[in-house]
């Protein structure tokens, strides 16, 4: 793990893998909860965790080198089930890339347990990992100008659900009626880093 300084009050902690970053994130949350770490933002991402709003980043950079970071225990976090209709316009293309029939895409996707690696792009948008490498697909070469809210999509190693209508370049394989983001709700985000997710197929109505 390396600690890269980011301006005057932040550190970017870089792990060698997404798994290491995930474990570090869990440990940082634990230390903040117990009061031994004071920081404004803890922002996990693909292979890094950003600490923003630190009084003394240099001291923390030194201290972090001696952190004992236990691996994240499986099943430590809550499981969210998202009902999904596998009816996306890119289902055929994804099936072709996976070299399976279309209904097999649904079976594989719904049979996978995902974890929210991190959030970004829009409030409530989670980057979900869990698909095996052979199921990773590239983004569309031309992004759509409007992807509907609730679209279940794939890009690279990630699955995501668009919380609201927005432009987007991911491959759309399905639709969910789950509300990913509602700022009047507590918590506003249905998914947060570390949440486990399963997609549960429902019949087309």
């Amino acid at each position, binding site marked *: 793990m390396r600690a*890269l300084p980011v301006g005057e009050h932040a550190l970017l902690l870089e792990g060698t893998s997404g798994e290491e970053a995930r474990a570090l994130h869990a440990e940082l949350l634990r230390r903040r909860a117990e009061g031994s770490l004071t920081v*404004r933002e803890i922002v996990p991402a693909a292979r890094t965790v950003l600490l*923003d709003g630190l009084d003394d980043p240099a001291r923390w950079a030194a201290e972090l080198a001696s952190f004992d970071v236990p691996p994240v225990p499986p099943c430590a976090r809550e499981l969210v089930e998202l009902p999904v209709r596998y009816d996306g316009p890119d289902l055929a293309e994804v099936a072709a890339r996976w070299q399976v029939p279309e209904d097999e895409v649904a079976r594989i996707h719904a049979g996978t347990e995902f974890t929210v690696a*991190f*959030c*970004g792009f829009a409030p409530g948008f989670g980057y979900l990992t869990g698909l095996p490498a052979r199921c990773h697909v590239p983004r569309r070469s031309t992004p759509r100008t409007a992807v509907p809210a609730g679209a279940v999509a794939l890009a690279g190693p990630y699955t995501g659900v668009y919380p609201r209508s927005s432009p987007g370049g991911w491959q759309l394989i399905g639709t969910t009626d789950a509300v990913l983001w509602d700022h009047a709700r507590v918590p506003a985000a249905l998914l947060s880093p570390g949440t486990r997710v399963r997609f549960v197929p429902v019949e087309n109505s």
Partner: protein
Amino acid sequence: MTDRALVVVRCGALTTVQDRGRPGYAHLGVPRSGVLDPPAAALVNRLVGNPPDSAVLETTLNGCAVRPRSTLTVAVGGAPCPVTVGGRPVGWGAPVVVPAGELLEVGAAVAGVRSYLAVAGGIAVEPVLGSRATDLLSGLGPAPLTDGTVLPLGAPSGPPARVDVAPQPGPPAELVLRVTPGPRDDWFTTRAVRDLSTRGYRVSSASNRIGLRTEGPALERARSGELPSEGMVRGAVQVPPDGRPVVFLADHPTTGGYPVIAVVRAADLPAAAQAVPGTPVRFVPVHRR
């Protein structure tokens, strides 16, 4: 209906409600948002007797005009501009009483970009995640003002400041941004790192609340490939594929996949919010304290 309200008569190019924003939610993809020029907003709040985090209006280049339904104290600061009440000139950077029903005109900026209008009691739209700020990237908070928008106001909490005119820094003729290198300066050639501080850049007209875009020499990458998405901070100097540095401002995305060559000192960001397109930009590397 309460008469503590402002009616927007002329919304201007872009006028938004802003306060100190919503820090603490970046891990959910929620930008920090908030005023782009915090010292200017804090000053006008102080002039009308508000706490520093009260919500104000942030205008862009050509001001706005509002009509209060009840008599109230206001102050305009940030980018210098003519201010009139009922057509008569009044003070800029000073507390001013606007009688009920009179038109308060915040004119076009004569220098700088963003003027701030504080009203005693603050703008009292419903907060979202603890903030009334309009976030143009994610759409949280109130929509940008349109003609006819009615803004509720809070109750005044303190007396206006007893000053005639408060001094405020003028907008910069040259925007000097002190930067600390990294975290991804190793993604660029040593020449690019030198170019950032020695070649001239100018503020691009494509700048907005998300980022200050620049025009100038493209910075050359030392390595190709994609950087996995990572957390971003306000003031990050991100370099997209066209090589022209972008300085992240309040509504910046919380994660990004383009490398950050350096980070601007927080103290220099208010000036970045006031630099008009075409202003020369100089990035000055400084050592960490």
